[in-house]
């Protein structure tokens, strides 16, 4: 165990003028988690663990002058945390958490919040997050909406084969009608999904849509060993909605939607 010092004497970092590495923090885990020897995170830096008592942080070194946020950076962050969620409880930090050194990780992050992190990790033991996502099949859902609405049908008749300049108002009206109908369908279908998931868990979070044609976005906290039941449940719903909604089940992942930051101190 090295005790970090101010001096720049690390064997592989004694380049005069080279930027001092700072520490990127991925998340908090129990102290008995060990990174794979060759696991790498953002910018291919080796994943390290910084422990304090029973808890620890997953970290890696990072060059403070390099900007963060490429797709590879984002995926590295998620990969480390989601990979961990298979085997251990993990409290994920939001992307972009950087502190000056390992001492800060111990003294400010871990030691200061030891009890709350330890008890949160204990509660999460055996659980991981899954994401149930459904996206409408555009043609099918628009047909469904037009078929269900006489007004939409007649607007569609009005714009049919008309040049866009002539029918712009009708197009806007039809499109707006479809937009509202989609919202209503999203609400109904989210409700249906929640009903279907209810026997498995009531720890769910409904996410806001991030795409026009999102049907369902629900994060679920579930025991990892009940993943099979969840797959079955979502698979049944996918079969039922075969032609109108493309369902996906993503996970296990770190419980991003179920960790809550404390209110800033006054």
């Amino acid at each position, binding site marked *: 165990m090295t005790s970090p010092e101010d001096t720049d004497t690390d064997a592989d970092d004694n380049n005069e003028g080279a930027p001092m590495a700072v520490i990127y923090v991925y998340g908090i885990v129990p102290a008995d988690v060990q990174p794979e020897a060759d696991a790498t995170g953002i910018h291919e830096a080796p994943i390290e663990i910084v422990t304090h008592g029973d808890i620890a942080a997953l970290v890696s070194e990072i060059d403070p002058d390099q900007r963060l946020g490429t797709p590879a950076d984002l995926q590295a962050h998620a*990969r480390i945390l989601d990979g961990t969620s298979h085997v251990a409880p993990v409290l994920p*930090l939001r992307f972009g958490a950087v502190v*000056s050194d390992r001492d800060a990780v111990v003294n400010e992050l871990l030691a200061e919040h030891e009890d709350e992190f330890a008890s949160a990790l204990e509660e999460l033991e055996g659980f991981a997050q899954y994401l149930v996502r459904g996206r409408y099949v555009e043609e099918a859902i628009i047909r469904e909406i037009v078929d269900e609405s006489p007004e939409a049908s007649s607007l569609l008749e009005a714009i049919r084969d008309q040049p866009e300049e002539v029918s712009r108002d009708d197009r806007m009206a039809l499109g707006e009608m479809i937009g509202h109908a989609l919202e209503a369908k999203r609400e109904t279908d989210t409700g249906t999904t929640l009903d279907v998931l209810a026997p498995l868990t009531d720890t769910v979070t409904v996410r806001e849509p991030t795409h026009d044609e999102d049907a369902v976005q629900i994060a679920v906290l579930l025991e990892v060993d009940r993943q099979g039941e969840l797959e079955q449940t979502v698979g049944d719903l996918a079969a039922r909605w075969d032609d109108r909604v*493309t369902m996906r089940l993503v996970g296990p992942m770190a419980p991003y939607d179920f960790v809550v930051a404390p209110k800033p101190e006054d």
Partner: protein
Amino acid sequence: MTTAGGPSSSSLADVIDTILDKGLVIDAYVRVSLVGIELLTIDARIVVASVDTYLRFAEAANRLAIGSEPKGLSDLVSDVKGSGSTKSKTKGVLEGVGETLGELLGGSGSEREPAPRRRHK
């Protein structure tokens, strides 16, 4: 229907929706030693209802076959959105698990395993 495979790994879109505005915020816990690092990332939220969206919906409706002719328009529709709208209706649920997690092992060909491993107690 097959049940092999299990859930899929996160796509980039999943990751963006997840890690940019969810999870613990470091500045709620660490104050003194925070390093402000420049993020390229912008807010990924979209405006769900807009004029463009409405016109797009109307155009999609306009492309529907007249009457109740079932399906059969997939090729017409699929080139509009580029990705996703009509392809592989049920495939997603059954994608293989852990595709990207395997990369953690540095492509050495060893079996897939997530990065950190739990020491047995």
